[in-house]
């Protein structure tokens, strides 16, 4: 076992354990805080894969903005802080079965694929990936169109969120 593998296994255990707590915890504020731990684990994984910029973006956008927005929404949408009763609907055994079925199906399909056990080439990631990423995002022969579409989507979401959440009272 190399140190990288040990770090990966610890991070994977953190991600899966906290993700399980996100979907099972009764208190929604705690669930949102467990989501922060999951997102942090995913950021560690990005760093381990050599995508340092994405790890940073994960922490800034997901933990800094999205998770905090979730905590705000949880606190704005409940009358009392303590949730009573079950937090899952009565069909949850079917849901659990479906989720296990999808996992089994994915694992089965993946295990039959040739590239499944591929290991990365021993050469480190070539050069400056951040420069390549920036150039790819604005280059006309690469991804400028998806990039602009994403920016329009963000603008539309911004306007829509303000319109939806604005109070209708005069």
């Amino acid at each position, binding site marked *: 076992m190399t140190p*990288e593998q040990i770090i*990966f296994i610890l991070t*994977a255990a953190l*991600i899966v354990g906290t993700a399980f707590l*996100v*979907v099972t915890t009764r208190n*929604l504020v705690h*669930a949102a805080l467990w*989501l922060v731990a999951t*997102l942090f684990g*995913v950021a560690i*994984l990005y760093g381990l*894969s050599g*995508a340092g910029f*994405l790890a940073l*973006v994960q922490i800034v*956008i*997901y933990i800094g903005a*999205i998770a905090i*927005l*979730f905590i705000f*929404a949880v606190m*704005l*949408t409940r*009358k009392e802080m303590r*949730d009573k009763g079950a937090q899952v*609907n009565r*069909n949850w055994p079917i*849901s659990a079965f*479906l*989720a*296990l079925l*999808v*996992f089994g199906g*994915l*694992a089965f399909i*993946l295990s039959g694929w040739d*590239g*499944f*056990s*591929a*290991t*990365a*080439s021993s050469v480190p*990631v070539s050069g400056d*990936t951040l420069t390549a*990423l920036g150039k*790819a995002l604005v280059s006309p022969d*690469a*991804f400028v169109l998806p*990039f602009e579409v*994403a920016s329009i*989507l*963000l603008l*539309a*979401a911004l306007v*829509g*969120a*303000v319109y939806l*959440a604005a109070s209708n009272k005069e």
Partner: protein
Amino acid sequence: MSIPLSWYLILSAALFCIGLFGVLARKNAVAILLGIELMLNAVNINLVAFWRYGTGEITGQVFAIIVFAVASAEVAVGLALIISVYRRRSTVIADDLDLMKW
């Protein structure tokens, strides 16, 4: 880099299925959105893993960034919808929002 690609793929599949269970089983609409976030993160793990194990193209990271943008847009609109519904109906339990159920 001695981690096999399969580890990333299995972890991503597990995270996706946990998120799927959250979306299908939780009652609270905010908790359903939490499950969707888990599923989007599973997709991102896959994209980054395929970028790392691919042929040197930057495409995986570009699409991971676009997934970030889509996730933040989805959360902003989704939570605004939930807050708007809560103002009108005083509930965020998905089962109680059955106005269009026939």
